[in-house]
């Protein structure tokens, strides 16, 4: 037997002894149970987190028009809305008039923290457009085109105003008085039967007679210009009383 083997055998025996002696110790009397644990102190309730809602009505506006922001919060001590609104009550509404599209954020702060909500107001950009307003001149032009301002007619070789001629001039004068920003030309015309020199004078007399009556009816004389066309510009071509009657007229045009 070698010397090492004896050493390990002895080590083994020693350890066995130790193990046996340990087993003997557990067989002692059990200790008394420990006292019951005290009731745990209730944990402190954490403060609630605030909530907030924010809405905009209407949510799209034109420039320079107001919209209303409405919010309500819970558990908030303060509410701040950006975009120039600032500190506000915890709920309420405010009118705003943003110049461009804006997203408003309302922040509610409380012990429980903070919460936020947003609402967007879209500002509709108007196309820069020409303001279309008919001028007096255009209104009168249209009225003439549509036959609302009528020519007046005369008897052969006459420049007297008949009752129906006067009635027509009265209707025309209403237009001329209402729409004042226009110069009116009163043209005198003749049929082809007379001679040219006499007709140029007769056309002038017809234009003057019509102009005088319009002045009497309150149309400013400075707006009324009389001109004779004699037989230069017949309204209808042709001969015969039907054509001639249409050509013996005072006709209105605009400068």
């Amino acid at each position, binding site marked *: 037997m070698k010397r090492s083997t004896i050493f390990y055998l002895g080590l083994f025996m020693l350890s066995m002894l130790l193990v046996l002696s340990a087993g003997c110790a557990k067989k002692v009397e059990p200790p008394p149970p420990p006292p019951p644990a005290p009731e745990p102190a209730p944990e402190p309730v954490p403060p609630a987190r605030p909530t907030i809602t924010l809405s905009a009505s209407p949510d799209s506006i034109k420039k320079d028009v107001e919209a209303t922001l409405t919010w309500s919060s819970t558990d908030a001590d303060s509410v701040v809305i950006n975009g120039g609104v600032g500190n506000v009550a915890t709920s309420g509404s405010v009118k705003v008039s943003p110049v461009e599209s804006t997203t408003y954020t309302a922040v509610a702060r409380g012990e429980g923290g903070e919460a936020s909500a947003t609402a967007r107001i879209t500002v509709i950009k108007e196309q820069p457009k020409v303001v279309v307003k008919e001028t007096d001149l255009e209104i009168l032009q249209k009225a003439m085109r549509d036959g609302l301002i009528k020519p007046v007619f005369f008897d052969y*070789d006459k420049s007297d105003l008949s009752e129906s001629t006067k009635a027509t001039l009265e209707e025309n004068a209403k237009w001329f008085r209402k729409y004042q920003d226009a110069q009116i*030309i009163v043209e005198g015309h003749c049929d082809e*039967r*007379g*001679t*040219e*020199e*006499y007709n*140029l*004078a*007769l056309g*002038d*007399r017809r*234009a*003057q007679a019509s102009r005088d009556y319009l002045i009497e009816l309150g149309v400013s004389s400075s707006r009324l*210009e*009389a*001109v*004779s066309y004699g037989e*230069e510009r017949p309204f209808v071509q042709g001969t015969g009383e039907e054509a001639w009657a249409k050509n013996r007229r005072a006709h209105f045009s605009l*400068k």
Partner: protein
Amino acid sequence: MKILNWKILPLLFLFQLAGIMAQGQRPDAVIFPKPTPTRLAVADFSPRTSANPETLSSLEVFNKVLMDDLQFAAFFDIPSRSFYPLKPLRTPADIVYENWQVPTLDVDFLAFGAIQADATTTVVEAYLYDIKTRRQVLGKRYTVTDPALSRRVAHEFADQVVYELSAGASKGVANTKILFSKLRGTEKEIWMMDYDGSNAERITFNGGINKFPEWSSDNKYFTYTSKPDTSNHWSLKIQEVNGESKTIEVNGSYASSPAFSPDGQKIAFSASTPDSRDADVFIANVDGSGMRNLTLHQGIDTSPTWSPTGTQIAFISDRSGGPQVWIMDADGSNLRRLVEEGGHCDSPDWSPNGRFILYSWQAPRQWKHDVYLAEVATGKLYQLTRDFGAGENPHWSPDGRHITFQGTRSGTKQIFIMNADGKHLKQITAYGINESPSWNNYSEAIN
């Protein structure tokens, strides 16, 4: 050498009119006196040496123009060329006098001559011979550098013939001009043409309506009524022929029918001013100063014409109803009516000898105007146009033997010329619408 031929003296026909018309009776037309008229043969001019193309084309124009001028002159009885001797005449040596005295011809005078032209020069030799006395009345040699002037030479010679054979009673009208108003599109401008309608040229350019031209007595200026396209006012213009125009400012809506006084210092015209209220006859100096209303009166007064002495003005007024011819002194006094007739009158023109006033008249129950002549002293009336179409805007020729007017017998308004008795009517415009002819006066100024 001037020939005073007794046969042509009775042809100064205007002096005969009153005697021919039965007293107190309105005749239908002026009747030409019918004493033996001067018989004139107008032979075709011949090539002088060679019948080259330039000579032939000059001859073609010259022969037609000369014949037209002498026929229209209304002094001559021109026998048909078919009776003429066949032998061409170039020089006086070619005349066989007996051949021109056969019964079918029996002419008093013979006009003939020769032309030679090349590319640069045209030479016209023109003769007038008295067949009875076998003497030369006229022998003229004209040299022109523009072949287009053959027409002009024919006019010159025609006027010479008229002057000689009328014993100086007329200088002829072959070289006269007529102003008129021509519509093209919407523009009515003033044009000028030869008395026979040739060489028409536009002489106003304002794009508006231009009417009623009248010459100054020296023919250097004309005056007219104008409404430029850009304006609503009628105004009066005085324009140098082919030169600048100036405006006579009239305060009012209407100004029309200007006429130069015979001395050229004043114009008479019609205008409607804030004071006159309707058309009145005014006079003013030609620079527009000294404007004066002669007819401050309710109603239309227009179309003034001066008497040849400048002492009276005839005009149109409707103060008695329809427009009629009235006469007043040039200061507005001594007003009287020319003719006591109804209907409508316009456009009077006083004759160069002062004896007659020409105007257009639409007689009662007539549907159109015709040209009439009234003797100023007696109020006797002569109708000069009739039948188809109207006759308006009549105007005397400078020798008082012819009349131009605007007629519609061809459908549209055109310019006509005729003898002062209404005969020998000739249309001288054809295209467009042509109005208001004004015959010029005797003067050397217009060329």
